């Protein structure tokens, strides 16, 4: 899904494909895409034809090329947005599609763009991260980060340029990609990502090489004409919102009454609904993490329901998030209760966004040939253990991310609590890591100590949570407490002899 946007029409087609050629469900990935894991190879041409009928394809979803550009799922709507990143994502999408020079890179290549104060696109953990903002002179440009990534060797991206005018975006990207294509390691698949080149060369020298290459091409054919940027920008004009500023007070009091009557609606409003830049509207995060469910799995029936709800409440558009949820960006606040009731009919009204059970989870050994351990059943166990919504709210914002092997598709390095599955002499063993974060205060989680067996790992997570609750100051999030007190108190409680 280019920069995570999908139309209701496209989602209906995905539902149809999942029903007809798969097992009736699809899986939302951390790449803001949807995976269909059970298609027969011989059906692939028919599936591609069905995708093409709604302007979709699977090109560059694998291979050592520039992959789908990802972005902020709240783009265009968020109250804290400075500039809309989708405009530039689309320009990058066009430039990177079937690029003749960069289709056989040393390794895959991922670009993320964010344009808000809060980073919801994890730009510090991508091969290139672009942070769109306006400088003091009122010009639009990017802070440019390179060499971030997860996998076997996690790195936070390094800033190589504080301000790049938007008109220079493509020439600068081409300079980075060319330096990487020429100098990136090709002798070892596990050291071929740009993060290794940047790490070995150092961010400063890498940046200098990019600047030197860019000097040669910055005035060339890739310089973006302003009328082309304007032309693309027109496609991202806001949907036809109604003027609701005058109704705000009435909507607010009606919502307050509903929240009073319906504790679960109240919880959902608190956890899943975010501020919109437009008066009277809200952004709704739909949790695909119901209690005991497989994180990120949507049935065809749920996809069809979501498509209808998008048409009815949010101008027919949806977003897939990198934490495996779905977002409706433009919901009238007076429709929130009706939307919540409809979502509840499809097991999509869980009010746990950004809470402990809103976990990221890779497919693990149940699907993946690389995995050493299962991750889905573990996510389900944790979800059941912490099913109580009041308890989750008491714990507050806390991300749990789990991967079934060191390739880190479940982003365990950037979970407040990260879980890494390993195989030890034929038995599954789970490593626990603490302190990761994917946002503007990016950090990589550290392994706390010896791993836990399958029957003890959920207890270990609970132990960490209890330690946090005992240590926290008023209003302090888990990550803040961890940063304040360090790993020691957690370690002491986890490995205390009983």
């Amino acid at each position, binding site marked *: 899904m280019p920069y995570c946007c999908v139309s209701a029409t496209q989602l209906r087609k995905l539902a149809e494909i999942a029903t007809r050629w798969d097992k009736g469900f699809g899986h939302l990935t951390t790449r803001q895409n949807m995976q269909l894991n059970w298609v027969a190879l011989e059906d692939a041409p028919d599936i591609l034809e069905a995708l093409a009928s709604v302007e979709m394809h699977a090109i560059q979803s694998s291979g*050592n090329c520039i992959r789908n550009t990802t972005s902020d799922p709240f783009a265009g709507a968020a109250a804290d947005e400075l500039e809309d990143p989708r405009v530039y994502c689309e320009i990058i999408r066009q430039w990177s599609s079937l690029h003749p*020079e*960069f*289709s056989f*890179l040393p390794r895959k290549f991922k670009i993320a763009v964010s344009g808000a104060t809060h980073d919801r696109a994890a730009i510090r953990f991508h091969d290139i991260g672009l942070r769109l903002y306006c400088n003091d002179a009122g010009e639009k440009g990017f802070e440019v980060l390179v060499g971030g990534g997860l996998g076997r060797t996690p790195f936070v991206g390094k800033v190589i340029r504080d301000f790049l005018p938007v008109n220079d975006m493509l020439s600068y990207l081409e300079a980075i990609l060319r330096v990487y*294509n020429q100098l990136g390691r090709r002798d070892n698949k596990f050291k071929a990502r740009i993060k290794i080149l940047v790490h070995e060369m150092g961010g400063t020298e890498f940046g200098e090489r990019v600047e030197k290459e860019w000097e040669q091409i910055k005035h060339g054919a890739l310089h973006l004409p302003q009328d082309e940027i304007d032309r693309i920008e027109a496609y991202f004009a806001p949907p036809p919102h109604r003027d609701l500023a005058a109704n705000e007070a009435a909507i607010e009091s009606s919502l307050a009454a509903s929240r009073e009557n319906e504790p679960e609606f109240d919880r959902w409003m608190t956890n899943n609904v975010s501020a919109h830049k437009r008066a009277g509207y809200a952004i709704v995060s739909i949790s695909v993490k119901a209690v005991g469910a497989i994180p990120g799995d949507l049935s065809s029936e749920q996809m069809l329901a979501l498509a209808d709800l998008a048409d009815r409440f949010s101008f027919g558009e949806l977003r897939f998030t990198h934490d495996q949820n779905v977002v409706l960006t433009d919901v009238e606040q007076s429709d929130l209760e009706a939307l919540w009731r409809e979502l509840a009919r499809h097991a999509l009204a869980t009010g746990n966004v950004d809470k402990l059970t809103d976990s990221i989870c890779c497919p693990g050994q149940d699907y993946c040939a690389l995995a050493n351990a299962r991750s889905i059943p573990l996510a389900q166990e944790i979800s059941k253990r912490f099913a109580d919504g009041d308890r989750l709210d008491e714990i507050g914002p806390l991300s749990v991310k789990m991967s079934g092997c060191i390739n880190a598709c479940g982003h365990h390095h950037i979970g407040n609590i990260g879980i890494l599955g390993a195989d030890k002499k034929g038995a599954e063993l789970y490593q626990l890591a603490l302190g990761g974060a994917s946002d503007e205060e990016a950090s990589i989680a550290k392994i706390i100590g010896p791993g836990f067996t399958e029957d003890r790992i959920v207890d270990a997570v609970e132990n960490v949570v209890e330690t946090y609750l005992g240590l926290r100051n008023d209003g302090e999030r888990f990550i803040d407490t961890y940063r304040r007190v360090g790993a020691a108190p957690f370690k002491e409680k986890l490995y205390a002899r009983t």
Partner: protein
Amino acid sequence: MPVLKGGKRIEDSWTSLPSGDEIPAEGPLIVNLAQWREERDALCARRDPLGILLASHESPEEIADELDHFSLVCLDFPVFNDGRSHSSARLLRERYGYDGELRAVGDVLLEQLHFLHRNGFDAFDLDSEHPEEDWRIAEADMQLWYQPTGDERTTVIELRHL
């Protein structure tokens, strides 16, 4: 191996200089970068056309100031997914102004012909029984192009703002 150039199969009149061999007095000759460095004077004294082969890790910058000596530059693809020579080709054409024959050699695949041509290659060492048919297929791969490269194709952005 047949050579494809301008959509036609052509006779390859070039020979490569085996390492350690005497430089032949006559005939179009391809040398590698090391041979060029070592035998520059002797090679320049010849009257017949000279070509050079760059390995994928050898930067075209190495010969940027000496391109007048060559009427053929071969860029190697040791395996199809070693994409470095794609960048080398663009630099030779667009930055260093090389306008002689630019030939892709090694693991050159039909699937990459279109990309190669866009990057500036005009000749291909193609392991194929039907190189001319391959060329027709490859040429038809795409009809619209997003990226400006050194070739003469009009890009989508140019078409939009005609």
